[in-house]
């Protein structure tokens, strides 16, 4: 059983500080949804409001269509996985996992059986009688997931649960979490500041800044078509250029900057903004390109294996980044070489600044 979640104009104030500002989003049953944003953007507050530890100042939260205002965390069909996991160190693993069942008055034999089933589900058999301190970071992670799944929640809430793990394990657990979510069909709401995590695991991502939801879309859309400058620069790298919007036609506008005139995509209704172009869309050449080309001096060339990272400085002192795919044959560009950096107008976008006006 999984349930959808609606946040309807939800606000949350702490004294005079507005932590969450008019958030509207509908999360489908069985969806893997991530809230992505820098620390302090209000994403954890959203999670705490859904789980019931914090009350919204304004707005309605519905879980499975039902307004949950006034329901305590122990009455809601949600299970929260804490950032530090919050396993109970004085109980053996199986009691940790079956704690939710113990609360519901399930008898000991059933609890034990259920705990062992869940341990098998999270791929951690034979650990029922161990203590929490005997497990590694990744194993604790699985126990926390099993403990949350034990109460058969309609919605699982995960508060940066992978942040304490090392890189290798984190990548492994991403796939694992995704698999568990698919297997159980429970709605997952995932909080993270790690864009890679959000993009790799989620069905949809909501990017947040300063309490506001900036964009809600699937990961591809978020990366390829960010709606504003915040989303563009928070998710992935960007070269950002300041300038004036000129004449526009067919969704492409002229953009005059200190580096010269450029052309880039523009959405209807955008009147001011900056130009954003990702490093992987920059090309490097000896000759100037037909358009969107800047003469530069290479300041830093780093061979990363699958790509070559190039930092270059323009005459005016602006630094531009490029990532050139390693085709396995070409020689490395040399630091100090004078070259031309260029990009295609369809790969660049003129975007307005973030939507952070406080209500």
């Amino acid at each position, binding site marked *: 059983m999984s349930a959808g979640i609606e946040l309807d104009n939800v606000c949350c104030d702490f004294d005079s500080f507005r932590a969450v500002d008019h958030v509207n989003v509908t999360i489908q049953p069985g969806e893997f949804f991530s809230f992505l944003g820098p620390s302090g953007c209000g994403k954890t507050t959203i999670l705490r409001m859904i789980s019931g530890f914090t009350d919204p100042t304004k707005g309605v939260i519905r879980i499975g269509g039902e307004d949950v205002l006034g329901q305590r965390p*122990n009455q809601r069909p949600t299970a*929260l996985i*804490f950032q530090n996991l919050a*396993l109970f160190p*004085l109980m053996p693993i199986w009691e940790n996992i079956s704690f939710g069942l113990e*609360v519901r008055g399930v008898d000991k034999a059933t609890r034990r059986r259920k705990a062992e089933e869940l341990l098998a589900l999270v791929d951690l058999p034979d650990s029922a009688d161990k203590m929490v301190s005997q497990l590694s970071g990744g194993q604790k992670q699985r126990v926390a997931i099993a403990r949350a799944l034990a*109460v058969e929640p309609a919605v699982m809430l995960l508060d940066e649960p992978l942040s304490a793990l090392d890189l290798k394990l984190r990548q492994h657990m991403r796939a694992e979490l995704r698999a568990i979510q698919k297997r159980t069909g429970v709605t997952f709401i995932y909080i993270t500041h790690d864009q890679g995590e959000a993009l790799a695991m989620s069905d949809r991502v909501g990017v947040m800044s300063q309490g506001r939801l900036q964009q809600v879309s699937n990961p591809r859309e978020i990366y390829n078509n960010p709606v504003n400058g915040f989303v563009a620069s928070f998710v992935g790298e960007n070269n950002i250029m300041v300038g004036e919007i000129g004449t526009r036609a067919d969704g492409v506008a002229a953009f005059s900057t200190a580096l010269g005139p450029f052309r880039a995509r523009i959405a209807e209704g955008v009147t001011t903004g900056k130009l954003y172009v990702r490093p992987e869309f920059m090309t490097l050449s000896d000759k100037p390109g037909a358009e969107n080309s800047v003469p530069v001096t290479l300041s830093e060339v780093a061979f990363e294996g699958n790509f070559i990272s190039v930092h270059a400085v323009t005459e005016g002192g602006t630094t531009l980044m490029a990532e050139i795919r390693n085709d396995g044959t070409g020689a490395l560009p040399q630091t100090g070489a004078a070259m031309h950096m260029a990009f295609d107008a369809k790969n660049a976008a003129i975007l307005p600044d973030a939507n952070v006006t406080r209500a």
Partner: protein
Amino acid sequence: MEQLYRRYGKGLTFMIVSLTAFWLLVLVILPDFKLLEASFRPYLPVVDIGGPKDTYSLGNYAQILGNPVDFSSFGLSFQIPARVKVFVLTIIYSGMVTLIAFLLAYPLCFYLAKVVSNRSLPTLFLLLFVPLWVSEVLRSFAWFIIMTLKGPLNAILMALGAIEKEIRWVDGYSPVVVTLVYAYVLFMVFPIYNSMQSLDNNQLEAAEDLGAPWWRVHWRIVLPHSKPGIASGSVMVFMLSAGSLLVPAIINSTTGNWFTQTIQGIMLEGQDWNTGAAFAFMLLLFCTVAVIAAMRLFRVSLSDIAR
């Protein structure tokens, strides 16, 4: 030791170590051994000391069994030696003091450690500490005055119309228990507060999120976590209560005698240090046994308490 030497040099280290050793050896261990030795020897006139009558025996210890009195409890009446009765009641009521102190301290500690904001914590602690600035003698007297026949407690109750006639509060063991709880409750509060404070708030929230009502959160999470603090607080309060002479002496409830008063009577009024020492060691031994038994019962180890 090495650290001490490196930090303070030869002279100062020698002084610190030798003074500590002097205090432990000469002021604590030796007198205790002297008393222990004396407790096995009879109380004799000076001329007989070291003479043929001065032999080791358990005679002093056996004296506790003399002088039987009637005793009734739970509808049963039987005869029990007067001193054994006082001894047993001292242990029982000390346990009661410990229990009451725990019942008072636990919610207070939870409030201080988990509910109250960090900003008001110093003020609250100050309020807890202020009574400690007054000596224990005065605090015990204060309670004695509160509970006397014409004292403020009766006056207030009469003024409120709750009672018709003054109640004799200073009677039996309850005034002693009340004053002992007041005197030693902080020894329960601080260790429990310390252990509760180290409990991760997320654990409380996790338990609640998994559906636990508040009492189960306490029973399964907070209480087990604070067990070491509860244990050391209980040991302190129990030992201090059972060994307290000042409080029962000041409250002076004639029907609420403490075993320490018996010992004092023998040692000071009777000048019989040998029997007094024997009784004191019996009290020490029995309290230790009681503490160890309680620790076994609640599955606490000594290392938990030392934390």
